[in-house]
C-alpha cells in the first residue's frame, strides 16, 4: 500500500514536473526557431501551455485536499549542507499551479492574435514561455533557494517583457525601474532566506513551514533582533513583487509592455507571487508583524484606489486597481484571513486578466484608427474613447462582467472573495482599540472608491459618443470585437468571473470550495451581524456610487471635486511618490556615486599621485645631488686636468724657441733643485 501510494505520488510529481518543464522546452525550441516573426513560435508556446494546463488540472485533481507530496533530489553539496531540488505539492502550490496555467492559456491564445503583426513575434513567445516556466516553477519548488531563483527569474522575464519594445524610451525606463525595485525586494528576500537558514540550518520549505514545522516548534529568535530584519526582508520582497507601498511605483510604469503581458504578469500571476510568498512563509510572522502587514495592505489599497480615480490612461487605471486589490490581499493576510486572501487572489486573477485583455482589444482598435488617420493621440487615453459598446458588444459585456466582479457585486466571483475579506476584517477589529478599526473602515471606503473608478472607466470607454470624432469628424469606425482568439478568451474568462466556478451559493462566500483546502480559517461561522450587514451595506452603497459616476460622466453633471484642487492633484500625480523617490533616493545615490568617483580620482589616486610626486621629488633631489655634488667632484677633477692641460698646451705654441726655452728652464730647474737640496 505504501509502495502503491509512493508510485502514485511519483506519478503526480512527474506530471507536475512536466507541467513546469513544458514551457521551458517551448522556450528552448523558440530560441532555436529561425526567423524573427516565425508564426510557429506562437503555436509551440501555446501548445506547451495547453498541455501543462491539462497536466495541472490533473495534478490538481490528484493533490487537492490529499496529503502533501514532496520529492526531491540532491542538487549539490556545499560544506556540510546538502541542497536538494524538488517539488512540493500541497494545496497551496497546486492551487497556484492550476491558477497560473489556467490564466496563461487564454493569454497565450489571445497573444497569437494580439502580437500577430509584430516583427518580433518569436521573441515575444520566447519570453512568454520563459515566464510561464519560471512562474510555474516558483509555485511548486520545495526549497527557499530555488524559490528565490524563480522569484528572481519571474522578475527577469517581466523585465524582458516590459521592455519588449526596447526602442521605446519609456518602455526601457519602465523595465529598468521595475527590475531595480524588484531587486530591492530580492535583496530583502535573500537576506531573509539566509537568516532563516542560519537559524534553522535548512532551506527546505516543508521542514521549515510545513505541518510539524521548525518555525512553529522552535521560536524564531536571532540575537540582536535580526528576526525582524528577516521579516522586514520578506515584507520588502512582497512589497516589491506585489507592488505595495512604498515599492509600488514600478507597476503603473510596467504598463509600457504589451497589454497581453500586463494581463498575465502584471495583473494575474507574477504580482500575486508576493501574496503567494506570504502564504508560503506565513508561520514566520507573529501577531505584531501581521498588523504591520495589514496596515500597509490597507493603506496601499486606499492610496491606489484614490489614484485610479483621476488617471486617464486606460492601463494605468487598471494597474492602480491591481495595486489596490493586491493591497486587499496583503491586508487579508495581515488580519489572518489566509484563505480569503488566496481566494481573492484566484478570483482577482481572472477578472483582472479579463479587464486587461479587454483594454488590449480597445487599445488595439484605437491604435488602428490612429495609424490610419495619422492622429497624434495616445491610444490608451480614455478621454478619446466612448460609445464603443455598440461597436464591440462582446467586449463590452466582458468588460462589464469583469468590472462588476472588481467592484464586488453579487453573482460575481469578486463579490465572494472581497466581501469575505471585509467581513473578516471587521471581525478582526472587534474588541480591539479604535485604531484597529481604521483598517476595516479604510477597506470599506476603498471598495466604494473602486466602484466609482470602475464605473468611470466603463462609462468613458463604452458609453456616450466616440470622442475622437470631435477631433476628426471624417473617421469611419469599422471596429469590432476582433479575431476569434479574442472572442474565445474573453468568453472563457468572463465565465470564470462568475460565481459558479468558485461557489455554488451565489451570495454566501463561506461556501466556496477554496476554503476547504486551508486549515487556518476563522470567521466562517455566521456568528455575528457582520455576515449580513456588510455585504448588504457595501453593495447597496456601491450601486449608488456607480449610478453617481454614471450621472457625472454620462449626464455631464459637475465633478465632485475640482481639477485644480489639492486632492485632485495628489491623486493625479500619484501621491508624488515617484517624484519623492527621484529627489530623495535616486539623486542622493547618484550623488553618492559621483562622490565615490571623486574620492577615487582625487583622494585614493591623489594619494598615489602624491606618493608618485614625492618619489619624483626625491629622485630629483637625488639627481641634483648626483649632478652637482657627486658629478661635481668628478667635473672638478676633470676641469682641473683640463686646465692643466690647457696651461701646458700654451707651451705648444709651435714656436721652436719657446720649446727650447721651456726645456732648458726645466733642466735648469732640475739642476737648481739638485743643487739646493
Amino acid at each position, binding site marked *: 500500500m505504501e509502495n502503491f501510494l509512493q508510485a502514485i505520488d511519483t506519478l503526480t510529481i512527474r506530471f507536475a514536473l512536466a507541467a513546469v518543464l513544458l514551457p521551458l522546452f517551448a522556450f528552448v525550441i523558440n530560441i532555436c526557431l529561425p526567423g524573427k516573426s516565425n508564426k510557429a513560435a506562437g503555436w509551440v508556446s501555446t501548445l506547451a501551455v495547453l498541455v501543462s494546463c491539462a497536466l495541472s488540472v490533473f495534478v490538481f485533481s490528484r493533490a487537492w485536499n490529499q496529503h502533501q507530496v514532496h520529492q526531491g533530489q540532491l542538487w*549539490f553539496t*556545499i560544506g556540510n549542507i546538502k541542497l536538494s531540488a524538488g517539488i512540493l505539492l500541497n494545496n497551496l502550490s497546486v492551487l497556484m499551479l492550476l491558477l497560473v496555467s489556467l490564466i496563461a492559456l487564454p493569454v497565450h491564445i489571445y497573444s497569437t492574435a494580439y502580437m500577430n503583426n509584430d516583427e518580433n513575434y518569436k521573441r515575444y513567445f520566447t519570453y512568454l514561455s520563459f515566464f510561464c516556466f519560471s512562474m510555474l516553477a516558483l509555485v511548486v519548488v520545495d526549497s527557499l533557494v530555488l524559490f528565490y531563483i524563480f522569484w*528572481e*527569474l519571474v522578475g527577469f522575464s517581466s523585465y524582458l517583457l516590459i521592455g519588449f519594445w526596447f526602442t521605446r524610451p519609456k518602455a526601457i525606463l519602465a523595465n529598468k525601474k521595475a527590475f531595480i525595485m524588484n531587486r530591492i525586494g530580492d*535583496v530583502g528576500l535573500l537576506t531573509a532566506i*539566509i537568516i532563516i537558514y*542560519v537559524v534553522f540550518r535548512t532551506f527546505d520549505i516543508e521542514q521549515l513551514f510545513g505541518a510539524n514545522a521548525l518555525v512553529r516548534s522552535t521560536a524564531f529568535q536571532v540575537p540582536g533582533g535580526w528576526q525582524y530584519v528577516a521579516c522586514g526582508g520578506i515584507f520588502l520582497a512582497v512589497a516589491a513583487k506585489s507592488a505595495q507601498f512604498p515599492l509600488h511605483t514600478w507597476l503603473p510604469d510596467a504598463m509600457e509592455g504589451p497589454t497581453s503581458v500586463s494581463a498575465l504578469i502584471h495583473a494575474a500571476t507574477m504580482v500575486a507571487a508576493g501574496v503567494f510568498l506570504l502564504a508560503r512563509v506565513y508561520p514566520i510572522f507573529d501577531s505584531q508583524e501581521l498588523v504591520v502587514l495589514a496596515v500597509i495592505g490597507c493603506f496601499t489599497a486606499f492610496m491606489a484606489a484614490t489614484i485610479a480615480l483621476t488617471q486617464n490612461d486606460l492601463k494605468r487605471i487598471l494597474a492602480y486597481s491591481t495595486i489596490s486589490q493586491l493591497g486587499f490581499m496583503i491586508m487579508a493576510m495581515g488580519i489572518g484571513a489566509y484563505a480569503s486572501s488566496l481566494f481573492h487572489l484566484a478570483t482577482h486573477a481572472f477578472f483582472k486578466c479579463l479587464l486587461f485583455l479587454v483594454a488590449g482589444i480597445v487599445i488595439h482598435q484605437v491604435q488602428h484608427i490612429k495609424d490610419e488617420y495619422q492622429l497624434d493621440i495616445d491610444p490608451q487615453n480614455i478621454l478619446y474613447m466612448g460609445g464603443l459598446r455598440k461597436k464591440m458588444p462582446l467586449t463590452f459585456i466582458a468588460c462589464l462582467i469583469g468590472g462588476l466582479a472588481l467592484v464586488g457585486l453579487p453573482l460575481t466571483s469578486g463579490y465572494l472573495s472581497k466581501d469575505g475579506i471585509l467581513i473578516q476584517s471587521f471581525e478582526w477589529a472587534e474588541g480591539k482599540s479604535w485604531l484597529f478599526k481604521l483598517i476595516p473602515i479604510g477597506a470599506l471606503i476603498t471598495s466604494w472608491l473602486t466602484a466609482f473608478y470602475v464605473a468611470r472607466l466603463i462609462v468613458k470607454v463604452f458609453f456616450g459618443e466616440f470622442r475622437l470624432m470631435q477631433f476628426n469628424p471624417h473617421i469611419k469606425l469599422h471596429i469590432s470585437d476582433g479575431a476569434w482568439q479574442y472572442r474565445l478568451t474573453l468568453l472563457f474568462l468572463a465565465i470564470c468571473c462568475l460565481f459558479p466556478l468558485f461557489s455554488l451559493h451565489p451570495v454566501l462566500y463561506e461556501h466556496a470550495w477554496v476554503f476547504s483546502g486551508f486549515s487556518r480559517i476563522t470567521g466562517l461561522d455566521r456568528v455575528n451581524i457582520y455576515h449580513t450587514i456588510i455585504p448588504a451595506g457595501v453593495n447597496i452603497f456601491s450601486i449608488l456610487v456607480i449610478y453617481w459616476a454614471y450621472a457625472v460622466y454620462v449626464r455631464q453633471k459637475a465633478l465632485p471635486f475640482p481639477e485644480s484642487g489639492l486632492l485632485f492633484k495628489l491623486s493625479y500625480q500619484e501621491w508624488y511618490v515617484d517624484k519623492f523617490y527621484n529627489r530623495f533616493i535616486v539623486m542622493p545615490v547618484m550623488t553618492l556615486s559621483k562622490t565615490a*568617483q571623486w574620492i577615487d580620482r582625487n583622494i585614493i589616486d591623489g594619494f598615489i599621485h602624491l606618493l608618485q610626486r614625492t618619489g619624483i621629488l626625491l629622485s630629483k633631489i637625488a639627481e641634483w645631488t648626483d649632478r652637482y655634488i657627486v658629478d661635481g667632484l668628478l667635473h672638478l677633477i676633470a676641469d682641473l686636468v683640463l686646465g692643466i692641460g690647457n696651461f701646458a698646451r700654451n707651451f705648444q705654441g709651435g714656436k721652436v724657441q719657446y720649446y727650447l726655452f721651456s726645456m732648458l728652464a726645466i733642466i735648469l730647474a732640475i739642476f737648481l733643485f739638485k743643487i739646493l737640496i
Partner: protein
Amino acid sequence: MNILSLLIFTPLLFGLLIILLPSAWRASFKYIALLATLVQLGISIWMYLHFKTGTAYAGVNNEGQFQFVQKLPWINLDLGTLGKMQIDYFIGIDGLSITLVLMSSVVMVIAALACWEIKSNLKGFFSLFLLLNAAVIGVFCALDFFLFYIFYELMLLPLYFLIGMWGGARREYAAIKFFLYTLFGSVFMLLVMIGLYLSVKDPATGNHTFNIVQMMNPANYDANSVFSVLGHQTLLGMPARTVGFVVLFIAFAIKVPVVPLHTWLPDAHVEAPTPVSIILAGILLKIGGYGIIRVCLGIFPEVAASGAFWLGLLGVISILYGALNALAQRDLKRMIAYSSVSHMGFVLLGIASLTAEGISGAVMQMVSHGFLATMLFFLAGVVYNRVHDRDIYNFRGLGTAMPRYTTFVMIAFFASLGLPGFSAFIGEAFSLVGAFESPSVNGALPYWMAVCGSAGILLSAAYFLWTLQRMFFGSLSLKGGDVWKTALVDLNFREIITLLPLALLTLALGVMPSLVFDKINDSVLALVEFTKHIIR
C-alpha cells in the same frame, strides 16, 4: 613527465617555438598560441576529470593528499653552519586550485582568441603572452613558497610589457602604475617569505624549507624563530605573525583588488589590449583571492581569525564602493573594471567569514567572475575594435544594430548582476550565506556586514541596467553617425564561438554548481577544520 609540469611548461615550449620561427611566418603565431592554450585546456580538463574527491584527497595542510604532485630537489646549497638551503620544485593541486586551474585554462583560450585584434609586433606579443600563461598556471600549482614567488613575479614582467607596448593612449601611465602597485606588494612578500623560511624546519631533514604545506603546521616552527606560533615574537612593537599576515595580505589585496589599493585596476584594464584585460580580470584577480586563501589563511589562520572583522569590512567597502564608482562611469571598460572590484569584494567577504559556505562561495565567485569578466571585457573589446570608442554616452540603441551582440551583452550583464541560473548568483549568495552564518558559528563578522554586502547586489543591478538602457535600448543613434553604423557590424563567427562557451559555462555552473562544489568541498572543509583547530 608529470602532467602538472606539462601543463605549466607547454605554453613555454610553444612560446619558444614562436621565438625561433622567422618573423615572416607571423600570420601563424596566433594559431600557435591558440593551439598552445587548447592543449593546455585539454590537459586541465583531463586533470579535472581525473581529480579524485573525498576526505582522503582534501589536501590543504596535508602534503600526502595533494594530487598530480611532483617534488624534485631544486636548489640545495650546503651553507655550512647555517644549515642546508632547501628549495624544492614542488607542485601539486588540491580542491582549492583545481577549479581555478581549469578556469584559467578556459580563459586563456578565450584570451588567445581575442588576440586576433593584435596587429603589431606579433612575435613579441605572443611570446610574452605564452610566458604569462605559464606563470599564471604555475602560481596556482606551486606549493613551494619560493617557486610560488618566482611564478608570481614572472607574471608581472610580461604584463608590464603587454600593457605598456600594446595598450591604449595612456598605456605607459597604466603600465607603470600597475607595475609599481604590484611590485610594492611583492617586495614585502619577499621579506615575509624569507622570515618564514628561517622559521620553518622540515621535520624530515631538519633543514629550513620553503614548503608552504609545512609552513601550515605549527609544530614545524622553531621555538625561537620570528614567526613561531608559540614564540609570540614581536616586530616593530606588533606581534610578528600579525605583521607577516598583514604584509602578505596587502600583497594579495593589491591583486584582488581591495578598495584602497584598487586604483591600478581601472587604468590597467582600460589601457590594456583586450586579451590582456581578459587575463587581468579573468585570472590575475583570482590569484589575489587564491593567495589569501592558500597563503594568508593557510599559514596564519589564527591571525586571519582575529582579523576577520577587518577583512570583512574591507570586503564590504569594496563591494559598495566599487559598485558606486561603477555607477558613475562613462567608459564601458572602466565601468566593468569597477564592477570587478565590487564582485571581488564578495570573495573577500566570503573568505573573511571563515565558514565552509563562505569560502566555497568565494571560490565559486572567483571561478564565475573569471568567466564573466572575460566575457564582459571581450564584449567591451568588440565595440571598441569596431569604432575605437567606449563612451557609453556615445551609443544608443545598439540592440537594433547588433542584435546578437546585445544578446550576449545581456547574458553577461545579467549573469554578472547575480541573476539566478548563472554562476555569479551562487557565488554571491553563498558568500553572503557564509557572512550571515559567521556571527553564530565563529563570531568573525557582524550581521550588518552581510546586509551591506547584499546591498551591493542591488547597486550592481543599477549600473548594469543603466548601461543596458543607455547604450543598447532605445532607437539607434550613434555619435559617429553613418560611419559608425557601417562599422558596427554584428558579431562574427569567431566572436560567437568565443562567447558561446563562456555563456554556456556560466549557465552550467549556475544550474549545476556541483561542477565546482564537488571538487572543492573536501578541501574547503579541511581548511575550515584546520583553521578552527589552529585557533583553538
